């Protein structure tokens, strides 16, 4: 066995100390449930195992991605890997013994502080799995704190099916309903929302940027509609966008959820880092880990997991959530990336998300048979593009040319979607050329 071999003399000494002749004698398993077969897995040397897995992974095509759709890539500076992979961080556990885990606790405290600053809300937890599970937890929080009766979560009709499916799984247990309000021209239809909201509404959710890549123009109006019906207002966003956008608390958000893996993580097939922030009055209903400051016996500031009586290992079936292992190490990476960028770097990165997609759209719009963007308004990273030929055909052609783009069905129309960040902006020329070449070949 590769990582634990007791030399024969030590193995014998240990078996003697325990009083058995063979380690197998220690297994108190009845014969009728003993496994005497094989898994059929061959052992590999490290070199072989590495070659086998990497060889499998190499089976994916080489594509320049303009995808987005809920998972976004920004350049991750080398400092993130080198610091986060320090084994004292990477190989540690949840900080149940805070005296020996001050480093990670402080990093998580700094992460919470970052989310507090961006959201404008007083409380942020140490992480959720991803943006969809964070939204699910927001719905559960709303059902616990809302004083009047009501069981309905209102989400925009553009909410991605993947996110809605997770939300519905979270809300089914307590018997909550997920219902839809309309969008118009890509953003919240406030009049339509007024028609959809009711006294049974307990949470209204809106995202900015939204699923069409648009920044919502008037979320304070959405907040007013929610609050007029004693519902909470939950905003979805991400930590890059929030660095530039007005803090959601300033226009009435009660809860902010979203993604923070946009900083600190490579593409990694959609690994997430959910953020969860809320108003101070909901503190004791917050799901997940919270790191707080305290003092130690030397009267120095020290950090610790706190308010643990909310959590499953203390409160069991009355816990605010079942979450235990979360995304702590991803939060550490995000915190390092944010520290590396600094405030101006964050603002600049976010601004690049505004200008990059806008410039791509302008260039695509100049091509025959293309309208970009489909909707007027301010875009962030993403936009929908209308094509005279079926969007799927354009996407298929671009795939042949080495790109990966997706199509989006919006109200029965199928559009091409583009996503531009600092990580693929240097390939925009190639993409425009490939789209133009397809147009010319038709």
């Amino acid at each position, binding site marked *: *066995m*590769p*990582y634990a071999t*007791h030399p024969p003399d030590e193995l014998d000494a*240990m078996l003697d100390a*325990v009083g058995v002749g063979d*380690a197998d004698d*220690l*297994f*108190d*398993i009845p014969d009728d449930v003993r496994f005497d077969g094989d898994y059929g897995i061959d052992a590999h040397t490290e070199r072989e195992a*590495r070659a086998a*897995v990497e060889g*499998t992974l190499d089976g994916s*095509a080489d*594509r320049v991605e303009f995808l987005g759709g809920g998972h976004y890539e920004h350049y991750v500076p080398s*400092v993130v890997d080198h610091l986060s992979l320090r084994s004292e*961080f990477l190989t540690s*556990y*949840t900080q149940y*013994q805070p*005296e020996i*885990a*001050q480093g990670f606790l*402080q990093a998580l405290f700094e992460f919470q502080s970052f989310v507090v*600053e961006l959201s404008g809300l007083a409380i*942020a937890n140490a992480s959720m799995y991803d943006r969809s599970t964070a939204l699910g937890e927001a719905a559960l929080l709303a059902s616990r704190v809302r004083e009047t009766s009501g069981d309905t979560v209102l989400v925009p009709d553009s909410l991605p099916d993947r*996110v809605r*499916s997770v939300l519905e799984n979270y809300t089914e247990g307590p*018997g909550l309903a997920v219902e839809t309000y309309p969008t118009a021209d890509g953003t919240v239809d406030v009049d339509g929302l007024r028609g959809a909201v009711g006294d049974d509404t307990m949470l209204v959710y809106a995202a900015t940027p939204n699923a069409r890549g648009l920044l919502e123009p008037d979320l304070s109006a959405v907040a007013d509609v929610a609050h007029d019906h004693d519902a909470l207002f939950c905003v979805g966003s991400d930590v890059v966008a929030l660095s530039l956008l*007005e*803090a959601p608390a300033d226009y009435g958000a009660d809860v902010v959820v979203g993604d923070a893996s946009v900083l600190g993580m490579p593409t990694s*097939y*959609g*690994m997430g880092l959910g953020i969860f922030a809320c108003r101070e009055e909901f503190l004791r209903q917050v799901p997940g880990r919270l790191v707080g400051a*305290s003092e*130690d*016996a*030397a009267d*120095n500031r020290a950090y610790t997991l706190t308010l643990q*009586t909310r959590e*499953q*290992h203390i*409160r*069991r*079936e009355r*816990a605010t*959530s*079942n*979450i235990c*292992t979360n995304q702590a*190490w*991803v939060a550490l990476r995000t915190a*390092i990336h944010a520290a590396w960028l*600094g*405030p*101006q770097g*964050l603002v600049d990165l976010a*601004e690049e998300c*505004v200008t990059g997609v806008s410039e791509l759209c302008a260039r695509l719009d100049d091509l025959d048979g293309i309208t970009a963007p489909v909707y007027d308004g301010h875009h962030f990273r993403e936009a929908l593009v209308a094509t005279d030929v079926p969007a799927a055909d354009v996407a298929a052609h671009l795939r042949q040319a080495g790109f990966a783009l997706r199509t989006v069905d919006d109200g029965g129309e199928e559009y091409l979607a583009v996503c531009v960040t600092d990580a693929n902006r240097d390939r925009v020329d190639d993409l425009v050329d490939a789209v133009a070449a397809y147009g010319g070949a038709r």
Partner: protein
Amino acid sequence: MSGYEDAAPYEQARWHADDTYEPLLSEKDATTVEVESSLPDDLTRDELELPDIPEPEVARHYTRLSQMNYGVESGPFPLGSCTMKYNPKFTEDVAAHPGAQVHPLREDVDQQGVLELCYELQDTLARIGGMDAVTLQPPAGAAGEFTGILVARAYHEANDDDRNEVIVPDTAHGTNFASAAMAGYDVVELPSDDDGRVELEALEAAVGDDTALLMLTNPNTLGLFERDIADIADVVHEAGGLLYYDGANLNSLLGKARPGDMGFDIMHFNLHKTFATPHGGGGPGQGPIGVVADLAAFLPDPQVRETEDGSYERYAPEHSIGRVHEFMGNWLVLVKAYAYILRHGDEGLENVSEMAVLNANYVASQIEYEVPYGPFHHEFVASADADAADVAKRMLDYGVHPPTTKWPEIVDEALMTEPTETETKSRLDDLAAAFNAVAAEDPDALETAPNRTTARRIDQASAARNPRLSWHALDDE
């Protein structure tokens, strides 16, 4: 006198600056920048206040923080039920391979490498668990529990069978109770018998037409194998319920027994436990679940299958519960776990469990504290003759991480200890020596511990009474 003063020297790093061990970045420099943007003013913030630190000082800050943190590579980490074993380095390199960095919304044909790995891992975990189908999607063990309970509910509903109770033994992990409650079930707690196991008569009394699921950890949190598992399964199945296996303790059964063979219908795997992916100070984990054939149609969307032409595709099972994560959970954890499994093979995996169980039994044989329940497997629960929390704090002074304390509650002053297979005999001896040195101390003297860690004993009550959870909460001080 034996005491920590005489023990092998250990001192954790401490970067003392005024009243803090390391200032916050915001205390080093908080800069407010005016936000300039091409967006209209009403969409943007006026300013953003965050630390503005050059890269060399960022590197120093996090290096100092890492030095004030204890991991498996710092020393023994025998936290019971957490399986804090060594995390092989090469798996990090495999996860960093460019082929692992693929966007999930690519078409299937453009992500064949990812899908093939998922397919192979689904199949491999199914064989290890004795299950018929596996979903990789749940992003942690507790998420796996939640997913498994949703699958069970969907199955019962498909049979028009209205059941509203989940039975959980009193020694179970807190997540079992919380996951069942989140899925909308009433939780029925099952008391353990005098031997620390499920009592068949109590179970027979507890099950009925309302029983949707019994959740069980085997070996249980005392490290004891539920010897009556076949009868337990019969009781639950005869009542129309399903049996759920909590995979937290699977590190004791590799090559020895499979949950599917014991009669379990649903199980989760904690990849960060059994298959050595790093826990990262609280995640990312990953909690795939396996199910028997009758439940496969209810698994989350997507599953991965091989097509007739040998390629791989995603598909939604016929009666899928939908999603529990937007994409595939913590994908890089899947990559690392698969590499770990390939590295070991059948014999290596069986040896993992044999050595995990031997190491636990060896440490237990070397310590003064009583271990009231046995025969145990990969972990044991000792009973301290002092406050277990104080014992744990003093153990920190010996340069070892202490066991899980005060749980399960059926053992007085519990010290739940899981050394894992990756400790050498001399490290196990160090660990036993730490136990015994603390046992020899005056219990009252333990209240001042720890002394050799970065922070001294931390005031938990004040942290909860006066919550200070961000930079701004400290500004006023």
